[in-house]
């Protein structure tokens, strides 16, 4: 078994979609909060084949998209001031517009900004450039956080002198709580991200069942997984259940990956964080612990203080909260395209606007 083709079978997918249509009667709002789910659902046209009483909303599933533009402004201001610095970052971050500029534009202006596939790549850059300061600019949810934590941990073990990280990590469960508390959306259930949950464990969503009577299903990313996940969620909603169920059992467990959790805990502690579209969500972010302050770019350097104001034109905030669809944004596919993005939802490979642009606006889009 190769674990990919088997979960892309067309007949099984269509069979399951028919089952959803057979059992679904209630008008429900389901949110998926994972950029990869957003893309799978768009790519395979799943939204269009669901019955019209199921409203499937894309939420804040893209860590690049929820990074406040003030934080992009901060790193750009930093690299303009500090000449002896190499910034290492993930590919998606390069084209995200801050208020005035982007990392890609800064690179064109002469700043040394390099894309890494793995945060470990930034340690290699630091080792190869001993006279330069290397700063890893890292965003990401809980799938990525252990990898960045391990990188910082290794830098400290190796006593590296020219490496630090500017980390803007955010946590998934607090965002889900904020969405429920906002009352703006009337959500009935969540399709939960497979690989975030492989790390944090399905128990992390128990509060949604206990305190909010809201069912969650942790689904994989192949089309059959996503549809199976939606079936299980629909069945729960029809029967009035509110359990946390794992569809993606070949990868996800109730406890999660303890080694990855320990590494996150070793290097980071929770803090408040500003999310694009949401503003401040309490205890929804991570900062480095004091014992790692030598590797914390915000401690090592004077980073400018920046106001957190979202740029006026971009309506990514409402898209991220699921309050509007990309096609409802006046700039979608006109001023804002993948080539000329106004906001992160169009830039990022996991962004909702990018998915709608690439795979088409579903006929059931609001």
């Amino acid at each position, binding site marked *: 078994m190769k674990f990919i083709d088997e979960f892309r079978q067309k007949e099984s997918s269509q*069979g399951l979609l028919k089952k959803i249509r057979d059992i679904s009667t209630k008008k429900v709002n389901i949110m998926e909060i994972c950029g990869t789910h957003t893309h799978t659902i768009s790519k395979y046209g799943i939204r269009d084949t669901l019955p019209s009483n199921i409203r499937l909303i894309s939420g804040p599933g893209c860590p690049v998209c929820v990074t406040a533009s003030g934080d992009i402004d901060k790193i750009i201001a930093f690299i303009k001031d500090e000449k002896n610095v190499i910034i290492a970052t993930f590919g998606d971050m390069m084209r995200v517009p801050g208020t005035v500029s982007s990392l890609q534009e800064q690179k064109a202006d002469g700043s040394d900004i390099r894309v890494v596939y793995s945060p470990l790549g930034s340690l290699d850059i630091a080792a190869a450039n001993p006279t330069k300061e290397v700063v890893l600019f890292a965003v990401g949810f809980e*799938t990525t956080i252990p990898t960045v934590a391990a990188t910082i941990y290794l830098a400290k073990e190796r006593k590296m002198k020219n490496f630090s990280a500017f980390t803007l990590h955010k946590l998934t469960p607090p965002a889900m709580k904020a969405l429920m508390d906002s009352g703006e959306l009337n959500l009935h259930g969540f399709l939960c991200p497979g690989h975030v949950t492989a790390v944090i464990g399905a128990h992390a969503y128990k509060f949604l069942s206990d305190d909010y009577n809201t069912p969650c299903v942790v689904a994989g990313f192949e089309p059959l997984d996503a549809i199976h996940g939606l079936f299980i969620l629909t069945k729960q909603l029809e029967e009035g259940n509110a359990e946390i169920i794992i569809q993606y059992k070949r990868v996800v467990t109730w406890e999660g990956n303890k080694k990855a959790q320990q590494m996150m805990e070793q290097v980071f502690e929770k803090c408040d964080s500003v999310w694009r579209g949401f503003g401040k969500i309490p205890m929804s972010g991570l900062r480095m612990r004091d014992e790692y302050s030598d590797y914390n770019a915000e401690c090592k350097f004077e980073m400018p203080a920046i106001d957190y104001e979202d740029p006026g034109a971009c309506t990514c905030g409402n898209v991220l909260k699921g309050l509007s669809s990309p096609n409802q944004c006046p700039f979608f596919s006109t001023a804002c395209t993948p080539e000329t993005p106004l906001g992160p939802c169009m830039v990022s490979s996991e962004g909702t606007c990018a998915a709608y642009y690439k795979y088409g606006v579903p006929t059931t889009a609001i």
Partner: protein
Amino acid sequence: MAGTTKDASLMFTDNVTIGDYVIIHAGFAIQKVNEKEAQETLRIINDLINDKPSNI
């Protein structure tokens, strides 16, 4: 998959050997794929489609 070779750290996994499948993210294996569970999921889906009684 499909012939691409990449290095990855195994620091977050246990007992991974040649022939196993893992989920790789940003240069790290974050979980081993459980083949038994994969077979079970496919069986459950198959039962669902064919109206055979099964747990979810």
